């Protein structure tokens, strides 16, 4: 008995493993491909950065990380991330809630306004906010006669929350539209009033949405480099510290070390979020759709909700009006004379090259990122048990790794041919001397930076779809791929679309990783904008931003037409969640 006890469980464990539900061939191929792609796109650059970080200079940083200065920087970073994560999530939730549960005129407009910041290039919000609300701001000084100091935490919080909340908004919108309203009705029927229903049923159902929104915003906020550079004041965060180390102190090792520290809070939040998501799985789409969400009619609630979202909308409109107007006058707020010189400057030579290059590269990266993100989402929610967490993690790394680190990692990795020994596997992909002028590396950065948003929205959407729907398809004879194509994909079309839109807009507006790998042959708009802001030519920057926004909006419009097709019955509950 004792002897067999020692051996039998092991034998059984072995047999358990060998008899796991067999993965079909396509799944296996998909896993291999995904691992390979992620390996090249993110793991390799990180490994290179890591080996730089454990260099002497890097280790010095680790040793001093708990010195008061670095501790302060670390604390600043976390405070900023939490504030932006919380405020941005609340804003996103508010607007999504109003969108789903309220009927009013201008609903569509509010939706578009809420999406506007996605297409906003870095600096657009920051420069506009300084122009409007700075010490000599049009609103603060000229209208209100006050001179607030925006530089530092307050300005960063405002600007980053306004820049990043759309991610939370889209996330919450998709989730709320697919929630089963009968749950609210059930709560109401057992005597819960509207408020209690909201607090005890609606909010808990949205916990995964809150968690993933917070995660997204937190990570984006702490990884952002552009805004701390412009309005950080003396509020130094890890990303700007890493930037200083690399570009100011010529100390790649120290920069890599700082960014590894930067990676930690991101990973921590990621793990917490995972814990939440697995503990509270809210499956509510069952293929047995129920009615539409109840519309809120309570007058006080309407007034509060509409006033808040109205104010937000006004703020967004003002900011973007500033960007647009700023491109057409000499110096907004100082010399408001109509002037086309900014556009002349931007549209000639370098400017137009940058526009075409940036758009083309982003267009190439978008579908790749969208597909990659969705395939990962599909694998981790539907296909894999073992290794699921790892692939999820690898997929999200592209977002968790600060752009600065990624950029340096890419420069370190892809500037020379890649290979083992003397056998070159990949030619040089980055830098001026590389194939296609380094464009491939830029596309790769775009892909790895954008695919996590596709993955997140894909996972959220897939978690909402009853597994029985997949099983029904399989039991009718559909292979994994067929099920994905014919059932899963149409059902997650809204998520796919929002993933694609986000991917494209992100590519067009990403800056920090790009700084390190733009080449003379591939000029990127955002880094051109950086030059303009850097040089204080806000007018040129505004003109660039406006053009960038126009490009992104046009492509989004086309994507909407392209991805949405009319073969879906109009009444199908899920298709109404399309972002439009």
């Amino acid at each position, binding site marked *: 008995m004792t002897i067999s006890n020692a051996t039998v*469980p092991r034998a*059984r*464990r072995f*047999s*358990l493993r060998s*008899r*796991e*539900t*067999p993965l*079909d061939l396509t799944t296996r191929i998909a896993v291999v491909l995904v691992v390979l792609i992620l390996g090249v796109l993110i793991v390799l650059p990180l490994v290179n950065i890591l080996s730089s970080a454990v260099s002497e200079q890097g280790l010095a940083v680790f040793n001093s990380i708990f010195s008061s200065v670095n501790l302060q920087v670390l604390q600043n970073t976390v405070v900023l991330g939490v504030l932006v994560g919380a405020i941005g999530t609340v804003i996103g939730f508010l607007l999504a809630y109003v969108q789903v549960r309220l009927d009013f005129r201008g609903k569509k407009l509010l939706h578009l306004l809420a999406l506007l910041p996605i297409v906003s290039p870095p600096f657009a919000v920051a420069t506009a906010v300084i122009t409007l609300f700075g010490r000599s701001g049009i609103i603060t000084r000229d209208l209100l006669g006050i001179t607030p100091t925006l530089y530092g935490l307050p300005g960063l919080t405002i600007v980053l929350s306004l820049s990043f909340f759309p991610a939370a908004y889209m996330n919450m919108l998709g989730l709320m539209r697919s929630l089963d309203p009968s749950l609210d009705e059930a709560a109401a029927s057992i005597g819960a009033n509207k408020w209690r229903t909201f607090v005890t049923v609606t909010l808990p159902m949205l916990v995964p949405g809150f968690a993933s929104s917070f995660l997204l915003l937190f990570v984006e906020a702490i990884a952002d480099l552009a805004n701390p550079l412009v309005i950080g004041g003396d509020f130094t965060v890890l990303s700007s510290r890493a930037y200083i180390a690399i570009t100011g102190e010529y100390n790649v090792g120290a920069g890599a070390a700082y960014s590894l520290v930067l990676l930690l809070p991101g990973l921590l939040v990621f793990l917490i979020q995972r814990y939440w998501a697995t503990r509270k799985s809210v499956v509510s*789409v*069952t*293929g*047995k*759709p*129920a009615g539409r969400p109840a519309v809120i009619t309570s007058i006080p609630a309407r007034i509060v909700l509409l006033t808040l979202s109205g104010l937000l909308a006004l703020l967004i409109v003002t900011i973007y009006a500033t960007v647009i107007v700023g491109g057409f006058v000499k110096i907004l707020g100082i010399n408001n004379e109509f002037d086309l010189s900014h556009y002349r400057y931007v549209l000639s030579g370098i400017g137009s090259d940058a526009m075409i290059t940036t758009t083309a590269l982003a267009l190439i990266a978008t579908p790749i990122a969208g597909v990659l993100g969705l395939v990962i989402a599909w694998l981790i929610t539907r296909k894999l048990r073992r290794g699921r967490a790892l692939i999820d993690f690898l997929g999200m790394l592209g977002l968790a790794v600060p752009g600065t680190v990624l950029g340096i990692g890419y420069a370190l990795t892809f500037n020379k041919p890649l290979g083992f020994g003397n056998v070159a596997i990949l030619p040089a992909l980055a830098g001026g001397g590389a194939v296609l002028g380094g464009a491939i590396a830029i596309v790769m950065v775009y892909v790895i930076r954008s695919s996590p948003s596709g993955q997140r929205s894909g996972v959220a959407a897939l978690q909402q779809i*009853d597994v*029985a*729907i997949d*099983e*029904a*398809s*399989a*039991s*009718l*004879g*559909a*292979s*994994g791929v*067929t*099920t994905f194509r*014919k*059932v899963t994909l*149409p*059902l997650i079309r809204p998520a796919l679309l929002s993933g694609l839109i986000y991917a494209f807009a992100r590519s067009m507006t990403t800056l920090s990783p790009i700084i390190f790998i733009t080449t003379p042959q591939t000029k990127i708009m955002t880094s051109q904008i950086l030059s303009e802001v850097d040089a204080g030519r806000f007018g040129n920057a505004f003109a660039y931003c406006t053009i960038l926004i126009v490009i992104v909006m046009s492509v989004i419009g086309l994507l909407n037409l392209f991805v949405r097709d009319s073969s*879906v*019955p*109009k*009444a*199908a*509950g*899920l*298709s109404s969640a399309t972002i439009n």
Partner: protein
Amino acid sequence: MSTTLPTRTEQDAEKPTGELVLRDVEKSFGVGENRVTAVDHINLTVKPGEFVTLLGPSGCGKTTTLRMIAGFESPTSGSVLLDGEDMLRLTPDRRPMAMVFQSYALFPHMTVFDNVAYGLKLRKVPAKQLKEEVGFALASMGLTALADRAPNQLSGGQQQRVALARAMVVKPKVLLFDEPLSNLDAKLRVQMRLEIRRLQRLLGISSVYVTHDQDEAMSLSDRIVVMRSGRIEQVGTPDEIYRTPESVFVADFIGRANFLDVTEASTSSREGHADITVLGQRMSARAHRDAVAAPESVLLVRPEAIRVRRFAEGDDKVAGNHGRVLNAVFYGESVEYEIETEVGTIVAVVSDPVYDEIVPVGDLVGISFDPERAWLLPAAS
């Protein structure tokens, strides 16, 4: 891939197929201390065209068993054979089976027609034939008028009909049902189970049906498999399960039961009977083969087998042969009594009662039963 799936024509040409064999199937989760055995070495054969129901309380392993047949779970050990072919090598989509789900699992982005046509399209059925077959399936479920609707425009009953039509139209060798009626209201449930049975007979497809509702099991099944804690307690026709249950558990789970204590039990000269003393009387009752040998045994008497009469003045008062009416409920076609006796509370159902004969609460009644309608079985250990 889809070419390997059986098509309708192939199947029609052959003689009835669909013999499903579960051999020593085990399913365990976890490792070591946390190891839980959900299905514990079960053996079962479903004959071609047979309708078998897995019945049991929740957590008894019936759904896990069904999902292992379908391929959504893999057994830890054992084998699943269909017409001699090993199913475990095949992914769910390669198994010639179709499943009907509790949640219906209709594709929300497809119309009713497209939902039903889905499996046929996968089998590359020509357009004309596809239209015919889907049309036939819809018509037989009374869904023709709803063909262009989206699933969320249908009632629950209509949705389940679509799910049923969708599964049946591909002519699988085995149909699997996972509590398909539990989301429907009682009347619809009765109607639907008749319909399921009718169609299943018509098509002659072997079926495995999971439910915890004994009425459903009784009315649908050729044979019922009663499961408990991952094991099969009994396999038998509804009649066998009801009249000659293998265990107290089965007797108790199926229908309602009075268990009377038996003081003496010995082998009877009559085949399949035992001599016993119950309610103070000596009698010969039908008996389970192990009942006499068992250390203790009980006598199962169904409520409808109990005879109730007004207790007359001069009657003998032997322990257990009389009692006081605690409760009497009039159901129309029957009266149900709860009677307090010296050996415990006994439930009796008297069908088609004459009005005058209904005994009021509090009265004394005499109790008796026909030993031929009783069943002696080993007491639960």
